[in-house]
């Protein structure tokens, strides 16, 4: 079967357009498997992210462009994929902090989170460009690429002070440098290479970059993309890789339910290979047909049974009336 990448979405920072298809049942089960396999602990963030990324990449046509998105764009894409494939509302029960309530039900609209994330990332990075007209140098800043997740993971696990962690990460926030007609595309380079180039910056120039980026990182830390009381302490931050946990949460489904749906569809003669290739939303549609069909069938069965019962009751009344020399009722 030829894959059809029917959806496309463009991104605010890289200006890239990504063609994609929905997540299918197999992808969803694969995500469930890694959700079950990797403990929800920072130590496993990188392993989890790498596998999750591999699964998500299966839905992309232009994979190379996708690999070059920044982390914010990657999260935006995952949210979009979640909305298209599963739906934009996510509901879950969380253990309550209150003594009188065991659990609270949380409902999140992923479209709102997408919008909040776009607004937050746009507002935080006020100064995209550091320009020195006299020296004809233009530095374009941007959010760290997906490829930098490994760096942020190592950085997170060190005992260094957060200030040091932030300063060490700054070369990943430089997108490119233009000197007259020459361009240095930072996305081409590893951390070590980026750092070697960053180290050559005159301090006055580096300070401007640093000031703008620290301002951006602080603003991100102050923003509340969830706007939900329960998550009020969860601010966006590259230094704790919180987004990995949240992607996990957004894509989390009960594997048993998914298998049950596959089983039901197979019982109704829907080809299992076909089921593995449809999206969770499509699967829900089939399941709803089956439920509706079953309901109709049950309803029909009830009518027949009632008719039979009615018929049985009528015969008994007639027999009784005749026995007492009366005329049976109509």
């Amino acid at each position, binding site marked *: 079967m030829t894959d059809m990448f029917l959806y496309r979405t463009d991104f605010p920072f890289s200006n890239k357009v990504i063609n994609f298809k929905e997540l299918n049942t197999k992808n969803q089960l694969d995500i469930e498997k890694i959700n079950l396999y990797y403990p929800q602990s920072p130590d496993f963030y990188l392993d989890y992210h790498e596998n999750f990324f591999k699964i998500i990449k299966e839905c992309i046509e232009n994979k190379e462009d996708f690999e070059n998105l920044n982390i914010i764009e990657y999260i935006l894409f995952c949210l979009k994929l979640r909305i298209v494939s599963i739906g934009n509302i996510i509901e879950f029960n969380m253990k309550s902090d209150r003594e009188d309530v065991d659990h609270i039900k949380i409902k999140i609209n992923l479209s709102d989170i997408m919008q909040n994330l776009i607004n937050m990332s746009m507002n935080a990075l006020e100064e995209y*460009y550091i320009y020195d007209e*006299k*020296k004809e*140098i*233009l530095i*374009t800043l941007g959010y760290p690429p997906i490829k930098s997740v490994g760096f942020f993971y190592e950085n997170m696990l060190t005992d260094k002070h957060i200030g040091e962690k932030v300063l060490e990460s700054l070369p990943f926030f430089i997108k*490119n*440098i*233009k*000197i007259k*007609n*020459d*361009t*240095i*595309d930072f996305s*081409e*380079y590893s951390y070590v*290479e980026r750092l*070697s*180039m*960053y*180290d*050559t*910056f*005159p*301090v*006055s*120039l*580096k*300070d401007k970059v640093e000031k703008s980026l620290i301002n951006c990182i602080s603003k991100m830390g102050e923003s509340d993309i969830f706007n939900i009381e329960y998550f009020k302490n969860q601010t966006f931050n590259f230094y704790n890789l919180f987004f990995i946990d949240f992607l996990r949460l957004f894509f989390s489904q009960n594997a048993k339910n998914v298998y049950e749906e596959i089983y039901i569809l197979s019982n109704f003669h829907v080809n299992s290979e076909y089921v593995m290739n449809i999206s969770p939303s499509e699967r829900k549609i089939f399941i709803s047909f089956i439920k509706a069909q079953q309901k109709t069938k049950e309803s029909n069965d009830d009518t027949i049974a009632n008719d039979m019962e009615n018929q049985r009751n009528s015969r008994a009344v007639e027999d009784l009336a005749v026995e007492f020399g009366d005329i049976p009722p109509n």
Partner: protein
Amino acid sequence: MEDKNDNILNFDDALRALDAISEAFNVSVWIPSKKKEYLFKEIDAKQQKNMLSSAMNSSVYNTTFIKNLYDILNSNFLDKENLKDLKDFTVYDKFSIAIALKDKTSEETSVTFDEKDNVVKKISLKPIIERFKTFETPENQFLEFDNQNIKVKLEISVPTIGKELEYEEQIHKKEKKVDDIKNNEEIQQIISEAFIGETTKYIKNIYINDTDLNFQNVDFTKKIKLVEKLSSGILQKVLHTVSEWKSKIDTILTVSVEENGKTYTKVLNIDSLLFLN
């Protein structure tokens, strides 16, 4: 902002381009001993990091900072035609350069005037830069002593940055950390060695009965052994001259602020912390 006509650079060319552009971020520095200005490249991020690491160094000596600053002066000196002048720059010239380089990276510097009263103020380094233009580098002085028909003549001069580095490399080869000092005797020994060492740096030459001891061309280990043989009277005179010179340079480096009706003054230290405040 990318142009289709832009030339995308490979890593080596990118480094070269960044290095070239960094030369445009320069500062003209007044060198008192030469009575003229020289062009220096602003310090870069790597050099600033090295300064940070020398500030974190717990050595009792200042060797790491001296080496770092010497390396910066060498690599950031842009007057390539006058490169030979660099080695003659004095330690006082170095102060002028350090202040100018710091001023270029930030307009204000945070100075702790009084730790007890917690008087910490941001000051401009511009007045110091201006004062350096009036600073007269001390001329070499000859101190003569006669004792029992032995005539000792010492030539005293402000050490050059090259001599200062030589001293650090030869004498403080083995790093001594603050934690390594076990008792008061060790502290006294360090102070005594520092005193002799500092004095030795200012002695350019020694003549005994007009015989040149070729002091300039021996290493610091031997120089110190020779200086230790000099009488305390001679050393006192050397120290007196050096102190006079130091007080002149301290006047240039003195800054003051008014706080709650009280004037606080401080002689700026030229060390790694200067580049981090």
